[in-house]
């Protein structure tokens, strides 16, 4: 027992000491997606980055840790997490001329509490063989009876889908959105499952003809030997081009309220919104950079320009709780 105690104490004491020039990051994004960018940042500035990755629960963690939190920065993969961090007052102002210059006002908080780093579109993929490109398709059409048994999607409760449903509520109101959700559910080829890639795979194999998915997945799949055939089997469609434009989600960052290294965190955000990192986001991760003028990857560029839904993100974000309720009410995932 004593030995055990000694061992436990030893383990705690042996925890690595904190280096002076670091930035500690809580990340909702998988480390391997951002590693090249963080590595380059370290090389440029000498500031070491530490990452704790989790898909869920990081906001609760920052909240609980309060002023003792070691996290300087939170990286999120969707806008509702950014806005929630702001609403919980866990952020501090990102006060930087450079960031304001890099990122258009629509993609950062009016009070500077969060900033978007990349944009992604909620696309609808269609089977090349069975449907071909659908330039006039809208999200509303997904509930149309003609697509019965043809749609694949991941869980309705995933932030990407919740964002989309919230935007539907923002545009059409609760009642109409619920009817729409029931229609989409009735059109599903299978119970919602897997991630966005898995839906494209299912289209390739003939299980469904339409799949919801974020834009960058297609690019990532084309880079992967084994997944290229799936990606080759679909057309990418940008919904609602004839009216309000496609739904946009963002990945982004906040500096935490009690950051111990706020200057380093700010440096990282400045770096991440600037040309080099934005280029890396575009070319390695196939995302749309937020900084205007940064070149798209040639593949993403080949999809052409498109109209974005211009409704502000915090406006859409208001309806996120309601979106989740509707998903449960129509038993979308069951």
């Amino acid at each position, binding site marked *: *027992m004593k030995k*055990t105690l000694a*061992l*436990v104490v030893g*383990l*705690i004491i042996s*925890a*690595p000491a904190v280096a002076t020039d670091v930035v*500690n990051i809580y990340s909702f994004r*998988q*480390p*391997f997606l951002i590693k090249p960018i963080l590595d380059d940042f370290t090389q440029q500035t000498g500031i070491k980055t*530490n990452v*704790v*990755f*989790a*898909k*869920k*629960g990081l906001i*609760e*963690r920052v909240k*609980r*840790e309060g002023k*003792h*939190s*070691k996290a300087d920065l939170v990286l999120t993969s969707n806008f509702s997490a950014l806005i*929630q961090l702001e609403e919980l007052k866990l952020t501090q102002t990102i006060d930087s001329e450079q960031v304001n210059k890099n990122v258009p006002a629509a993609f950062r908080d009016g009070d500077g509490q969060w900033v978007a780093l990349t944009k992604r579109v909620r696309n609808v993929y269609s089977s090349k063989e069975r449907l071909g490109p659908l330039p006039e398709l809208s999200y509303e059409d997904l509930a149309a009876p003609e697509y019965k048994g043809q749609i694949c999607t991941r*869980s309705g*409760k995933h932030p990407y889908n*919740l964002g989309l449903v919230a935007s539907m509520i923002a545009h059409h109101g609760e009642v109409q959105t619920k009817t729409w959700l029931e229609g989409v559910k009735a059109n599903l*080829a*299978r*119970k*919602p*499952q*897997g*991630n966005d*890639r*898995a839906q494209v*795979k*299912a289209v*390739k*194999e*003939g*299980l469904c003809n339409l799949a919801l998915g974020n834009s960058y997945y297609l690019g990532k799949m084309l880079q992967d030997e*084994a997944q290229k055939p*799936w990606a080759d089997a679909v057309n990418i469609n940008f919904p609602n081009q004839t009216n309000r434009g496609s739904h946009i989600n963002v990945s982004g960052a906040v500096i935490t309220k009690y950051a111990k290294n706020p200057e380093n965190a700010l440096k990282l955000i400045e770096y991440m919104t600037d040309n080099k990192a934005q280029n890396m986001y575009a070319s390695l991760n196939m995302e749309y950079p937020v900084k205007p003028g940064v070149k798209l990857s040639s593949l993403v560029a080949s999809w052409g320009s498109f109209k974005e839904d211009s409704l502000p993100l915090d406006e859409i974000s208001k309806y996120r*709780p309601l979106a*989740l*309720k509707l998903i*449960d*009410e129509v*038993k979308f*995932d*069951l």
Partner: protein
Amino acid sequence: MTYKFQLSKWQLIAWSTGLLLSTPLFFLLVESLQGDSEVFTHLWNTVLWDYISNTVLLVLGVGLLSCLIALPLGWLTAYCRFPGKQQFEWALMLPLAMPTYIIAYVYTDLLDYAGPIQITLREWFGWQSPSDYWFFDIRTLPGAIIMIALVLYPYLYLIFKTALREQSFKLVQASQLMGLSAWKSFFKVSLVLSRGAIVAALALISMETMADFATVSYFAVSTLTTAVYDTWFGYYSLTAAAKISGVMLLLLFLALITERFSRRNQAVFERQSSVNSEALYILKGKSAWLATGFCSLILIISFIIPMVVLLKYAITYFDQAWSSEFFSYAWQSLKVAAVVSVVTIVLSVLVVFYQRIAKQANPLIPGRLASTGYALPGTVLAIAVLLPLTLLENTINRILTPYDLDIGLLLTGSLLTIIFAYIVRFYAVAHGAIESSFSRISPSLDMASQSMGKNQGRTLRLVHLPLLRRGLLTAGLLVFIECMKELPAALLLRPFDFESLATHVFQYVSDEQLELASISALFIVVVGFIPLYFINRSMEQRS
């Protein structure tokens, strides 16, 4: 006088352990009683009943399937001789080292509509679309039941086999002499005598199943565990999440009461301390083939196929999957697992020993209290553990403030939290196994020891511990492997610079790219072999 003092010492230890390990649960329950229940009412009116029925079906299904797999395996390897028996005896434990999220991933890859098996079938039979034929859909409740049972059956197998081995051989021999067939003897003697062990193992399996998050979420089967996640991180309602955890606990207590109920009036003691190693039944011809075939089938499905697929991934994606950091991840995982195993075993021996010697009322309560953590799924556990630790930390910091001192996040920002969480979570595993071993030591030994003037501490050390060696090893092994595989709590509680094999693998599984972490996944499985090797060797030495 000395006697009284001794007794209260044991009592103190047992009750402190019970109370300490149930603190997180207590805090969680308090949280669940907080006002606002709008979210809970909404869930109650919409999806909660689906979640409850899915959870109950999952637990029952996994329990039943585990019995169908493990009981025959345990009986065959304990009592029969057939080709390959010696190899099967240890090999059938191997799936324990396989995390459910890995086996689920592998089988989804193989059996999915877009997987190689269905593609081959379509090529052979010329089917064009899903409507042309029926195929087992793995991403369903039955699919989840099969996957989880394939990984959890070794609990029952191990505990049942140990129980059979330690049972008095003469009873089975007597049943043979009285003309009972092997089948009848299995049902009328072996099953009845091992009922306690079987139910204990099933209780473990049920709790483990209820706490599973990775598989059900990967298969999109909505259970109470996934509901807790959704509620917490979707509705952002800790209170409603705690209320759902309350529903889970209710189910768990029902299971535990069933276990206690089935053990009532049960007092079967081992009167021979030797272990039976010779075979009672020598299988020949068709029955030998059947035995070998059944063992092979289970081994192939639960272990060999997933391993081969992992190896294939590892070879194909070697360049992307290789990273020099494996050893550091492995070391971190091993370190935590070793500390947790030792601590849980020490604690559970003390608590179970108290149960045995206690003269006070309700000697079982400390053990029950300490075991409650097992029912908490990883994420719930993580927050449940953080509630009291944060309170403690804040209090200390407040007291220290006037002196300009500050411990910061000494508790919640270090490995201590993960270790505490794992002890809370896996105490029940050790307790169950040790309790079952203890119950087979005849009280007459205690009396003998006492009559020779040994006090209780010495009785424990000199009489019980040597007899418990195998039980301790089994318990330690189970806890160790659980720690290696544990994921959700590690994800939420780990400090900066801590990455275990499981968290490393998971970031790829969550992106449906296990291939890229296949070498680490193999590591988890292989590291799990080490304790399996030791337990097997010790068993051989004993027999």
